[in-house]
Every structure is written in structure tokens, then in C-alpha cells.
């Protein structure tokens, strides 16, 4: 009998019950909550007269709706101009207080994007099962946890029962071998993976990312990779625990301390796939082949190396794919054969649960230091992922570098990744964005998104069009 994958191990250790058809009850260790997908779940609890099964397993923070300008933020809830957003944020506050749930409120100095704050606070631990009413919950897999997004009915289910009803996924291993070339980042790796396997390539699987290029990434880089597992169709992505993981977690507020830490750390060392574990699918990439990536279309799989060109319709044999490309190019206002470096930009967004951590901001700052944003760039936002990231960046003087270069330095939140707050991309505008989705209208009605790494976005801000960051070094 073959060994177990990391996913098998976490699944097995959380299995409460399995029905004949494989539908299982899985125990959930951590439930993260934000304001958008939770109000109806709390309302459901109230209607049924139920209480949370284990209130202390929950961790909430508002992030999607909240304003990112300091003028609005310093006025607290009253400062939220959009009355509908204000109701949603205050509803989260009220629900957390009614049900005794831990919440980092909007103006708590530790507040931020839930997927940045969870790991930062040590609320994300290896071997945990973690869910949240948000598809980018896959981010937490970077710490060797089994983490994925759920819908609001399931949010209510987890609140009420501390369990989730689900079937086990298949196992996929994506191995990125060799050393990552200079100027190529975690974001480029994951975009290249999606370009290779497609946005439905991981559907039905839990993806484990491995190989030298993945192992050599910091935890923040690993989070960028796992964050976009969902963009490859997989609800969960994860990476085995190693010393880097343990070093990252030690000492964080929610992490175990003292004797409990030693025991936990010992147990977590087991959180790797066995050598003889069976994967239903294995995908291999060579790190040396990966270049900085830029998406040109309306799906993350519509991606090209920065040195490439937008595909032409004639070169696509598959009729459905040709139709998709045609639709995407029409929406994006681009034509096949155009060099990626010739795509002119109007806006830049550096932020989101994919790329708003301190290392991302350092990368971006390194590119813009001493330079000025190009004249054709109308808006360039830098939105740190959390209050603590913001504080750290300011301690390092990164805020000044951005401001002097002509970028705006904002308060933490999801911001223009999904544009639920006032930060929106204008109709027909092209944006170099470090976020995760380039869907039609995602960053604003009629907005045109190009997904890139923080360094690539920063370079695009300075030049007004895409440039290969490797040439700037």
C-alpha cells in the first residue's frame, strides 16, 4: 500500500464520519469570517435559534467593503460613504459581538485582508482545516493547512456544527524543479502554472505544490502560489511544512507557546507527503523556463511571458478557444499579434490577498525608488494587506518611496482587487494589477485588468506600459 499525501493526512485526521457514497463530515479547526459572505449565515443561525458550536474557532475581520483613504477611515464606520457598505460592515460588528466571535474591527491596527491577517496573527497553523466564505482561502495552504473557500450556506453550517459536509478531492502534485531565475517571482510561477494547466486544470483536485523552486520561496511567496490555486480550478492548494514554516509561525499571537509549541512543532514535521504517496496527477515545470508573466485576456489562463505577443486567432485550432480569445480581445480592446510590452496602461494596483505583504511592497519599492510614475498613468494605488504590513512598510520608509514616485499610499483592505469599495477601475482603462482575477468588470465596470507580479506592476507604473523587469536590474 502506498503512503499518504499531505492532503490525505490532514483529511484523515479530521474525518468525523463517512457515508457510503463518500460524503464525509470533516471537522473544521479555524473559520475565518468577513463582512460580505457572512450576514445571511448569522441570520440563518438566529432564525433557527442556534449558537456557534465553538465560538473561539472563529476569527473575523472586515476587508472587502471598507474604504482605503485615511480621511474616510479615521472617521470610523461613519466615514464609510456608501450606506450599503456601511450596513454590511456594522452588521459584521454586531454579529461578532452577539455571537461572541473574535473580530479585528475596521480600525484595529491589526485589521486587514483576512488572508493576510490570519497567517500574520498565527490564526493559521499547519495541519489545520481552515475555511472561509471566500475562494482565496486557499492562501493558507502555504503553511501546510488544508484551506478552502465555501459558500454562505456552508458558513452557517460550520458556525452551527464545526463541521463541513464534503467529498474528498483527488490529489495533484505540481512540481517546479530547479532554481528560479532572477527577476522571476512566485506570482510568475503561479501564472505560468495556470497558463499550462488552464483555469479548470485543477478542478476536482487538491493541489500540492513542490519542487526546489517552491521550497526555496519564503512563506509569503508560498502564499501567493496557494492563493491562486483556485484560479487553476482547485479549491485548495498546499505546501509541505519545513523549517521555513515553523520559523514563520513561532511567536505569533495565536500560535502555541512554550511546551505546547515544542509539541506542536514536532507534530507538524510530519506534515509532508510520504515518499511513496500516490498522486492522481503530476504536472512538472522547469523554473528556468519561467519568465515574468502578464495576462492579456479575461481569464487568468490567458497569460503570456512579458517577452511574448498576444495570440492571434489564426493560430488557435480549437473553435471554442478561438471564440473565447475573440471575446476576450474585444473586451480588452487589444488585437492579436501585439507585443505584451506595447500594451499601454492607465492604472496600476499593487495590493490584494495575492500580493500585498511586506516582501511584495519591498519588491515594488525597489523598482520605483527615485523614479516618477509615467505621465499616462492616471491612478497608481499601493494598498498594504494589513495594518501591520502598513506599519512595517512605514518603518522601512517604503511609503515615502511610493509617494515620492507618485503612487498613492492607502489603508489596508481588498480595494481594487474586486472594487466593492470606492477604489474602481474606469471603463476601458487598462490596469497592471497584482491581484488574482482579470474577469470582465472585476476591477470596475468595463475595466481591463492585466495580472502581474508586484515588481512588474511597479515597472509598468514607471514606464506607462509593460517592461521586462529583468532588463531593469
Amino acid at each position: 500500500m502506498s503512503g499518504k499525501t499531505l492532503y490525505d493526512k490532514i483529511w484523515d485526521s479530521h474525518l468525523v464520519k463517512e457515508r457510503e457514497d463518500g460524503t464525509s463530515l470533516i471537522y473544521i479547526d479555524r473559520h475565518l469570517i468577513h463582512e460580505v459572505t457572512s450576514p445571511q449565515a448569522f441570520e440563518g443561525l438566529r432564525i433557527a435559534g442556534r449558537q456557534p458550536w465553538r465560538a473561539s474557532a472563529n476569527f473575523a475581520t472586515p476587508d472587502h467593503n471598507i474604504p482605503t483613504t485615511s480621511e474616510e477611515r479615521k472617521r470610523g464606520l461613519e466615514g464609510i460613504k456608501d450606506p450599503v457598505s456601511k450596513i454590511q460592515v456594522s452588521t459584521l460588528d454586531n454579529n461578532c459581538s452577539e455571537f461572541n466571535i473574535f473580530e479585528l474591527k475596521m480600525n484595529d491596527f491589526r485589521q486587514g485582508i483576512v488572508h493576510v491577517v490570519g497567517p500574520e496573527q498565527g490564526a493559521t497553523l499547519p495541519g489545520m482545516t481552515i475555511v472561509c466564505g471566500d475562494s482565496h482561502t486557499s492562501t493558507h495552504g502555504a503553511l501546510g493547512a488544508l484551506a478552502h473557500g465555501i459558500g454562505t450556506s456552508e458558513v452557517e453550517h460550520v458556525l452551527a456544527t464545526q463541521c463541513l459536509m464534503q467529498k474528498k478531492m483527488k490529489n495533484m502534485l505540481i512540481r517546479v524543479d530547479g532554481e528560479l531565475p532572477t527577476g522571476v517571482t512566485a506570482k510568475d510561477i503561479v501564472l505560468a502554472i495556470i497558463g499550462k494547466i488552464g483555469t479548470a486544470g485543477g478542478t476536482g483536485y487538491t493541489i500540492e505544490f513542490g519542487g526546489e523552486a517552491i521550497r526555496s520561496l519564503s512563506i509569503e511567496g508560498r502564499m501567493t502560489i496557494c492563493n491562486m490555486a483556485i484560479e487553476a480550478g482547485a479549491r485548495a492548494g498546499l505546501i509541505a511544512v519545513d523549517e521555513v514554516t515553523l520559523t514563520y509561525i513561532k511567536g505569533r499571537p495565536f500560535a502555541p507557546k512554550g511546551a505546547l509549541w515544542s509539541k506542536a512543532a514536532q507534530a507538524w514535521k510530519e506534515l509532508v507527503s510520504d515518499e511513496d504517496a500516490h498522486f492522481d496527477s503530476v504536472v512538472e515545470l522547469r523554473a528556468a523556463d519561467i519568465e515574468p508573466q502578464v495576462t492579456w485576456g479575461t481569464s487568468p489562463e490567458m497569460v503570456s511571458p512579458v517577452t511574448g505577443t498576444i495570440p492571434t486567432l489564426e493560430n488557435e485550432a480549437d473553435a471554442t478557444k478561438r471564440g473565447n480569445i475573440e471575446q476576450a480581445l474585444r473586451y480588452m480592446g487589444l488585437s492579436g499579434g501585439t507585443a505584451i510590452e506595447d500594451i499601454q496602461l492607465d492604472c496600476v494596483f499593487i495590493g490584494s490577498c495575492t500580493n500585498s505583504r511586506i516582501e511584495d511592497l519591498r519588491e515594488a519599492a525597489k523598482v520605483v525608488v527615485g523614479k516618477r510614475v509615467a505621465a499616462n498613468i492616471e491612478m497608481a494605488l499601493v494598498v498594504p494587506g494589513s495594518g501591520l504590513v502598513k506599519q512595517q512598510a512605514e518603518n522601512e520608509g517604503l511609503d515615502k518611496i511610493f509617494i515620492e514616485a507618485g503612487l498613492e499610499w492607502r489603508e489596508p483592505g481588498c480595494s481594487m482587487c474586486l472594487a466593492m469599495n470606492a477604489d474602481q477601475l474606469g471603463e476601458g482603462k487598462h490596469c497592471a494589477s497584482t491581484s488574482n482575477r482579470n474577469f470582465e468588470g472585476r476591477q470596475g465596470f468595463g475595466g481591463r485588468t492585466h495580472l502581474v507580479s508586484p515588481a512588474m506592476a511597479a515597472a509598468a507604473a514607471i514606464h506607462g506600459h509593460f517592461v521586462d523587469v529583468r532588463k531593469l536590474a
Partner: protein
Amino acid sequence: MKKFTVESGLVMPLDRANVDTDFIIPKQFLKSIKRSGFGVNLFDEHRYLDKGEPDTDNRSRPLNPDFVLNQARYQGASILLARDNFGCGSSREHAPWALDDYGFRVILAPSYADIFFNNCFKNGILPIVLPRQTIDELFAAVVANEGYTLEVDLDQQMLCRPNASDIAFEVDSFRKHCLLNGLDDIGITLEDSELITAFESRWREKAPWYFTQSRIGAAENTEASGE
């Protein structure tokens, strides 16, 4: 949850792969704290010519005549025929809420995104996976025949076509049971409360580090936020 037994209805084709949940219901409508009323904003960015906002009167908005949902022949459709990877992207359950509120009870596609697929079952919508070739045939039939209807029988797991052979489909037996009887998942799970409690105490013993109290943090929170 409402029961699903047999659905007989008009079929609307949405000929586009990778329809994401932003396409199904754009983010500005996610600010609602209710579960209902999303139907008028289903496919909002494609259905209307202007940008939609919550709390506006949608009746006065200009419709996009080219979008399939606005075509006279598909009015009242309850079965949505779709392409690959339907419902990809965000986990928003507002997507099935909008489909349900509009009146769709069945989706037919070659593949779905996992979270969306799951969310459908929680809302009495039946997403059926069919082979790509069958989907192609259905697209051709719907486009060629105005008023094309199908009958979906969940108990028999059968899709009945006019003037063509029936098509069998797969569905998880537990999900089928829940849909047929309109069962609430939470109620079912709570029948296993003792199992969950037993698991929890074993797990607490084995991995106590997952049970450290976040209440301590909450006290700090009150001080830190000054509220």
C-alpha cells in the same frame, strides 16, 4: 430548502465557457445582507447596457437586446444550458441565489467550478454534468427549435428530450436524497452531534494547540481599537 423532484421547462443557452461568478452577479450587489432579490441583477453587466447599482429601479434600465436572457423566445426559462467551467471564480453564494431568484432550477454543462457546484445543491438548484458532445447536441437543438423544453427527473436521473432519446445523468446519492426531500444540511449534521463532540474531545487531546483561546486576543482587541 425547497424540494426538487421533476422540472419541466424552457431551456436557455449561454454559449460561453468559463462563465465566472462576477459574470453571474457583479460585486456591487454582494453588499446586500439578504438572501433574496438578486434575480433582477442576474448577469447584470451583460443583461443591461448601463452599470447597475444596488437599490436602483432596474425596470427603467436599458436592456441589451443581444444578450440571450433578453430574447423573447427564452422568457420564462428554468433550465440553463452552459459551457465548460461554469461558475468559476469567487465563492459567492449570491450566484446561485441570483439564478434561483430569476427562476433557474437546473443547469446543464460539461463541467463546473467546485465551490459553485456545491453551492447550487444548498439552494435547491440541480447542476448536471453531461458529456461535451451531448451539450453540443443540446445547444444545436435549442437554437434550432424555438420553445425547446426539457424534463428533468431527479428520482429517475433522467433528462427527457422532445423527439430524441432520454439522457441518463449522475448525481451523488446523498445530495440527491437531500434535494428530493428538501433537507437542511445543518439539521442532518446535528443528528451526529454526539459523533462531533466525541471527535472534538479526542482531537483536543491529540492536538491541543488548535484549541488555544482566541478570547484573550479579543480582550486585547477591545483595548487596541478603543471602541
